[in-house]
């Protein structure tokens, strides 16, 4: 089986030119990235503003082409123009602002737009629209106008629009950045369900560390390179390193880390309150009532 994403020595320069087309300046946004993502994985990509996350995302559905190196999506080279539309159909993309991604007058029309463009027969379009809206829990809103929906609902409609293309992989570039807490939960729940049930590969770019703890693997970017990678537990065990990279760790991880520095014997990389409780119970059993 092909890797879903295989990048080797990926470099991307943004080149700015003056009016005569002479090169004025160059910014290296991605600086030698190797990446292997297997089908069905849930991947989180973290990194501060300007670390190269979004540039990387755009390489994963051929919105950008490498300055140097190669990117293969399900074995297809993103520079191969004959594969361009196949790549974009297989690797769908969700952006930050839900309002910029919705074009239909009513929800089901918006979701059907993609399949219609690739010539799917009408009957099948309706089947795809229904199954996609059901997958993100938006079926009952199918005949509503998108601008009457909340941000989280709009973002789920955008995701349905991508699912209707039957992708193998969805790249989400900060899909929750503009949403309120309940909207964030809706979107993350939808993403996890697609991964669990439909086995769609999810690549989630986010600033919210809490969203990354469900990932199979976390990549942390800094200055266009992958600075840390591993399971959430491995990555979030490096509290100081993460802070150096201008990032947080989940609040509970930080709390456990600080308790550890104050003398309690707790392991690093605690990811939820249940783990914290167990670690405290074995470190200080006498503090618990009934122990």
């Amino acid at each position: 089986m092909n890797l879903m994403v295989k990048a080797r020595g990926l470099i991307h320069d943004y080149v700015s030119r003056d009016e005569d087309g002479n090169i004025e300046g160059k910014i290296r946004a991605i600086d030698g990235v190797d990446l292997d993502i297997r089908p069905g994985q849930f991947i989180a990509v973290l990194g501060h503003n300007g670390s190269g996350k979004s540039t990387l995302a755009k390489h994963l559905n051929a919105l950008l082409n490498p300055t140097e190196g190669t990117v293969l999506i399900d074995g297809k080279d993103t520079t191969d123009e004959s594969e361009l539309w196949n790549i974009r159909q297989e690797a769908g993309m969700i952006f930050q602002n839900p309002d910029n991604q919705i074009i239909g007058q009513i929800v089901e029309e918006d979701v059907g737009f993609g399949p219609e463009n690739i010539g799917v027969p009408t009957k099948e379009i309706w089947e795809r629209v229904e199954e996609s809206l059901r997958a993100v829990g938006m079926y009952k809103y199918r005949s509503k106008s998108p601008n009457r929906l909340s941000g989280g609902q709009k973002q789920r409609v955008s995701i349905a629009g991508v699912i209707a293309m039957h992708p193998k992989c969805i790249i989400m570039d900060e899909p929750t950045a503009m949403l309120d807490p309940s909207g964030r939960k809706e979107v993350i729940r939808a993403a996890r369900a697609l991964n669990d049930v439909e086995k769609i590969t999810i690549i989630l770019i986010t600033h919210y560390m809490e969203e990354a703890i469900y990932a199979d693997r976390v990549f942390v970017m800094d200055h266009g390179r992958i600075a840390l990678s591993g399971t959430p537990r491995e990555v979030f065990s490096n509290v100081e390193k993460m802070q150096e990279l201008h990032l947080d760790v989940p609040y509970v991880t930080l709390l456990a880390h600080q308790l550890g520095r104050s003398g309690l014997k707790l392991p690093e990389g605690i990811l939820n309150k249940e783990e914290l409780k167990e670690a405290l119970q074995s470190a200080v059993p006498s503090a618990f009532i009934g122990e």
Partner: protein
Amino acid sequence: MSLSVKDLTYIYEQGTAMSVNALNHISLEIPDGQFIGLVGHTGSGKSTFVQTLNGLLKPTSGKIYWNGQDIHEENYDKKLLRAAVGLVFQYPEHQLFETDVITDVMFGPKNLGLSETECRDRAKEALLSVGLDERCWTKSPFDLSGGQKRRAAIAGVLAMKPEILILDEPTAGLDPKGRDEILNMVRGMKERLKMTIILVSHSMDDVAEYADRIIVMNAGEIMMDGTPAEVFTHSSELEEIGLSAPQMVYILQYLKENGLPVETDRLTVEEACSEILRVCRDAGY
């Protein structure tokens, strides 16, 4: 210099089938020098409310008094009100437009009719207080980084020398460091310039750390108004209206339910840490 809101109601598209009650009989006092966190679900009326405060939206009924004066009285000078009550919109960097940073920041004061020198002095002061030094001033605003652009846009409002600064989700889309920088800058300005701050936010952890008063809005009404510790003990009510308490509250509640006798009204990592350590020490650890 206080702001007083009496029985404020705002209805969008009144008299049509689309009419929506965005604000329902809100009354509120905002005395000097508070750091207020304004929270609520999307659509709860937060943004409508802050836009009525500086007269951008005229309430359907009810009054707003700035220093005891009704702002919708005839002949009331709204220009002075808008300078005094500065509003930083969401994604304010989308409003940058001038050829260089300092001219952009001077735009507001110029509209107040101040002299070129006065405008320039105010712009310099505002840029310094948001932490943008001279090297940035002559750059195009579009050559700045995301966090810098946002700070330049905030400087544009500061140059009006507001007494109340309202920020509508100033940290949306910023990374954790950018978020901390903006919020620390706001806290610093409040202390240095004795401003009142109203921070509209979706992050309960942020308002818990920075605000000294929290106002919770739901369906156009004020549902809670109190200190962070008071408001966040009602975690289940907050969840019913699509909000949450800071993460520490949930962690401490869970530990307490499982036999660790901690107080659960600690809102930040530091406070929670010392509370857990206290309990461990009491147990002889």
